[in-house]
C-alpha cells in the first residue's frame, strides 16, 4: 500500500465519520421538526398552558427558562470576569497561575450533575432555601461558571501582548489598563463566552429540576422563594404521560422551542467569534 492509497483511505474514513455526525444531527433536527411542528399553533409561544400542559401554550415555561438562564449569567459573569482578570492581570506568569488554569479546565470537564448535587446539598439542604428560582439560578450559575471563565480567559489571552505593554509603557494604572485596553479589545470574545454559557445553561436540566422548578400551578414567580416553571420540567413531565397523545405532542413542541433557543444562542456566539477574529486582525 503506497502513501497515496493510505491517504485516500484516511480521507474516506474522516469523510465517513463526518457524514455520520452530520446525518445524526440532521436526523435529530428532522425528528424534532416533524414531531414538534404540529404542536405549533398560533399561540404556542404566547399562551399559558392549560389542562396540565395538555393544551394551550408554553409562555410561562419559556419565560421561566429565559429568566433562570439570564439570572444565572448575571450571577456568574462578575465572578468569571473577576477571576479571569485576577489571573491574567494581577498574577504574574508562574506555577500558581498554571495551576488555576488547569483547575478551571478540570472544572469545565466535570459532569454538571455533580455541581447540581453539591449545589442542591448546599442551597437546598444545608441552607434550607427550598425549591425556588433563586436557588436554581445560583446552581446554574455555578454550573456555567467554568464555561464562562474559560471562554473569557481565552478571549483575554488572545489579546496581543503588545497592546498590554504599550499601555504599561504609557504609565496606565492597572484598572485603567483593564478598562481601556483589556475589556474593549476582548469584548467580542466575552460576548461569545456569555452566549455559550447561556446555551449551556439552557441545556442543563437535571439539577434545577429538584431545586427551582415545579410543573404546574405557577406562572411567573412573585417572590424570591417562588419556584418557576421551565421548558425542561415541562417536557419531562409531559413525556412521562406516554399514554396521552396530546401531552406527547405538546412535549415535542416544547422540545423544539428549547432546541431552537440553544441553536440561536450558538449561532450568535459563532457570529461574535467570527467578529472577534476580524477585530484582532486589524
Amino acid at each position, binding site marked *: 500500500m503506497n502513501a497515496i492509497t493510505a491517504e485516500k483511505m484516511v480521507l474516506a474514513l474522516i469523510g465517513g465519520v463526518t457524514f455520520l455526525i452530520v446525518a445524526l444531527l440532521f436526523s435529530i433536527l428532522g425528528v424534532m421538526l416533524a414531531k414538534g411542528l404540529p404542536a405549533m399553533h398560533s399561540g404556542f409561544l404566547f399562551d399559558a398552558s392549560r389542562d396540565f400542559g395538555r393544551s394551550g401554550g408554553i409562555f410561562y415555561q419559556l419565560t421561566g427558562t429565559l429568566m433562570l438562564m439570564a439570572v444565572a449569567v448575571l450571577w456568574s459573569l462578575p465572578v468569571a470576569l473577576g477571576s479571569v482578570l485576577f489571573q491574567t492581570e494581577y498574577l504574574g506568569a508562574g506555577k500558581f497561575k498554571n495551576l488555576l488554569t488547569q483547575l478551571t479546565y478540570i472544572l469545565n470537564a466535570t459532569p454538571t450533575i455533580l455541581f447540581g448535587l453539591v449545589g442542591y446539598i448546599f442551597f437546598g439542604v444545608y441552607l434550607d432555601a427550598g425549591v425556588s428560582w433563586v436557588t436554581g439560578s445560583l446552581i446554574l450559575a455555578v454550573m456555567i461558571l467554568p464555561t464562562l471563565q474559560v471562554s473569557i480567559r481565552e478571549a483575554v489571552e488572545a489579546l496581543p501582548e503588545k*497592546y498590554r*505593554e504599550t499601555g504599561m509603557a504609557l*504609565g*496606565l*494604572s492597572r484598572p485603567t489598563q483593564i478598562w*481601556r485596553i483589556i475589556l474593549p479589545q476582548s469584548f467580542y470574545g466575552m460576548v461569545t463566552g456569555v452566549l455559550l454559557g447561556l446555551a449551556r445553561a439552557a441545556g442543563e436540566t437535571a439539577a434545577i429540576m429538584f431545586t427551582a422548578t415545579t410543573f404546574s400551578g405557577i406562572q411567573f414567580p412573585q417572590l424570591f422563594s417562588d419556584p418557576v416553571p421551565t421548558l425542561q420540567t415541562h417536557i419531562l413531565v409531559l413525556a412521562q404521560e406516554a399514554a396521552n397523545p396530546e401531552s406527547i405532542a405538546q412535549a415535542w413542541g416544547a422540545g423544539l422551542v428549547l432546541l431552537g433557543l440553544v441553536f440561536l444562542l450558538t449561532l450568535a456566539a459563532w457570529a461574535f467569534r467570527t467578529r472577534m477574529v476580524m477585530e484582532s486582525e486589524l
Partner: protein
Amino acid sequence: MIQFKNFSASFGGRKILQELTFSLPANSITSIIGASGSGKTTLLRALCRMNDRIENFRVGGSILVDGMDVCRPDTDVYALRRKVGLIFQKPCVFPKSIIDNVVFGIREKITKKDYPDLAEKVLREVFLWEEVKDRLEEKATTLSQGQQQRLTLARTLAVEPEVLLMDEPTSSLDPKSTAAIEKLVQSLKNRHTILWVTHQHDQAQSIADRVLVIEKGQVLPLSAPIVRLVKPFTKAG
C-alpha cells in the same frame, strides 16, 4: 540625570547585565550599541520597570532617576513610566482613530475639548501633523510604518516624559522615515534626556552626543572596544 550604580540584571540566574556603573547626562542624546542579545532591551526595560510581570527577572544595585531609585519595590511604577517613556522597536498603534491614539496615555487627565489642541501640538513635534491633519478620525492602522512610529512617539510625548528610551526605533523603517525620526530626535533633546539603542554603529555616532557600547554584560565608552564591536560574532562564545 540617570545614574546606574552596580546595576545587574538576570533572567533565572542567567546574568545579562553585570555591575554597571555609568550615568546619562540630562538633555542630551546617549546612544547604546551592542550586538543582538547583548542586553540593550533589557537595560531599557529595567529602567522603566517593564519587566515586573516576568517572574524570573532579578535586578541588583540601583538605577537613580533624579535621585530616586527606581528598583525599590515601593517605587510608584505608573508615575515612573510616565516620566520615563519607552518607544518600542516595532510601532504598536491601537485599532482606533489617530487622535484617540495620540491622547491614549492621558485621556483621564484632560478633558475632551483639549484633545485637538494637544494632538496638534505633539503631532507637530513629531513632524506628522501636515500628513494626518485631515484624517485624524481615520484608523491609525491605515498609516505607514514610519508614520505609525512617529505616532507612537507623539503618543508618548503627550504624556510629557522627561526621559525618552528608544529601542531601535528605526529598525523596521525605510531610509526616509529613519532620517525623519533621527532629525526629530535632535529637535527633542533640549527638553528630554534621550537614550537611543541601536546596533547600527554609524547611526549611533551621527545622532548621539555620546556613544556607549554594551558587551558581555558591561557598558563601556565607545573609544576602546570599537574593533571588537564591529565584528561581535567572530570569536565563538
